[in-house]
């Protein structure tokens, strides 16, 4: 990492595992669970959050000294809302079907706790470049979990990835289906998102005992 000092690369790498926004900090779960039935939606959601969090952190960090602390929450909300409107309009213009699937959850990026959490905890006290790295890192940490959940739910629930059938054809009985394999439609229902995240937390904490709560 020639470009980044050790401290800076830590900002990006930490949220990927040991300080993950979803499984450790418990932020941003609201929008994370509802849209993970398909891998494609998860990826688009991650990219949207990446954009909003990266740019938002820089903006907040640039104006951090002129925001009166009493109304800072309203100022932050307005900044995020403006960025989310951009995301929403871009999605509507270039991926209309997908923006229908995501429905109100694009709008809910505004109140995604990761964003407010990082503004409060990091961007208000650090310079623009470090805030940008922190935003990118946390958005990646969020995206990783979203993509893992989306991957398993789409693979086990409908036997496809990004819409391509990879386990064979369930009607023609090819591939795995020839051996009597059935799709688990249960994985597509919303409660399974919670249970899959619960299992991810289980795996992660068994690997790193320091994270176990008492």
């Amino acid at each position, binding site marked *: 990492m020639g470009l980044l000092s050790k401290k800076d690369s830590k900002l990006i790498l930490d949220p990927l595992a040991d300080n993950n926004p979803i*499984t450790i900090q*418990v*932020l*941003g*779960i*609201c*929008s*994370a*669970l*509802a849209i993970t039935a398909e891998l494609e939606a998860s990826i688009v959601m991650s990219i949207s959050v990446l954009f909003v969090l990266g740019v938002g952190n820089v903006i907040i960090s640039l104006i951090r000294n002129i925001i009166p602390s009493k109304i800072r*929450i*309203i100022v932050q*909300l*307005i900044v*995020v*809302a*403006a960025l*989310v*409107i951009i995301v*929403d*309009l871009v999605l509507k213009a270039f991926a209309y079907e997908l923006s229908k699937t995501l*429905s*109100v959850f694009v*709008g*809910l990026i*505004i*109140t*995604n*706790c990761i964003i*407010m959490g990082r503004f409060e905890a990091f961007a208000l006290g650090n310079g623009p470049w470090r805030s940008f790295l922190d935003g990118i890192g946390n958005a990646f940490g969020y995206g990783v979990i979203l993509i893992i959940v989306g991957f398993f739910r789409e693979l086990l629930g409908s036997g496809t990835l990004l819409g391509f059938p990879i386990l064979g054809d369930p009607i023609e009985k090819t591939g795995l289906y020839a051996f009597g394999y059935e799709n688990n439609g249960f994985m597509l*229902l*919303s*409660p*399974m*998102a*919670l*249970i899959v*995240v*619960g*299992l991810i*937390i*289980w*795996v*992660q*904490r*068994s690997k790193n*005992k320091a*994270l*176990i*709560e*008492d």
Partner: protein
Amino acid sequence: MEHVELFFKSIFIDNMVFATFLGMCSYLAVSKKVSTAVGLGAAVIFVLAITVPLNWLLDQYLLQPGALSWLGPEYAEYDLSFLSFIMFIATIATMVQLVEIVVEKFSPSLYNSLGIFLPLIAVNCAILGGSLFMQSREIASLGLAATYGIGSGIGWFLAILAIAAIREKIRYSNVPGPLRGLGITFIITGLMAIGFMSFGGMLTGGDEAVEEEQKTVEVVTEVDEDKKLADVSEIEKEADNTTKVVE
């Protein structure tokens, strides 16, 4: 009748936490004790009941395509709906501040019990989600919007109350180390959500009944009441089941 239907629908079938995962952050963070959960739940009902009708008015007279026609025919073609996120969140944030000031002035005891939670609520996804769903489901009148706000608030309240009670009990169970705390809470919430899915069939008969006599509709709502009572015992049962599973 529409009101009763929407009310029960927003509590049970479209439950904020179990069906759409709104407000999960505070749901997980503040559900360690029943008393704090009740405080936050009450604050959510309160704020939703105010902001959803208010945002309905905004949507109807400012944001929708053609909403500005009350200003004059030349304004009828304006479509400001792309501004709805920013307008809704600004309304919510200012309302929360306003409610905080008013409550502090007139009822210090209520302020002490709600006080810490009110600022938190401005960034609760459930509040903005309530307004966005109100917009996307095209709720027809101001009264219905208020019913929807109160109903979904009560649904959220029920959910956080149930999980807080379960978490208080589960402290005495022997949960595997890595699952302790957050992990098991996720899984319990998942199981509860599966339980709540059974309410899905609750109002499906209602649509035909509306066209028939008023009486049938009344019977339907009586059944709703029963189910509401049954719900409490179901949650308790669920708590027992999960503890057994864990054991």
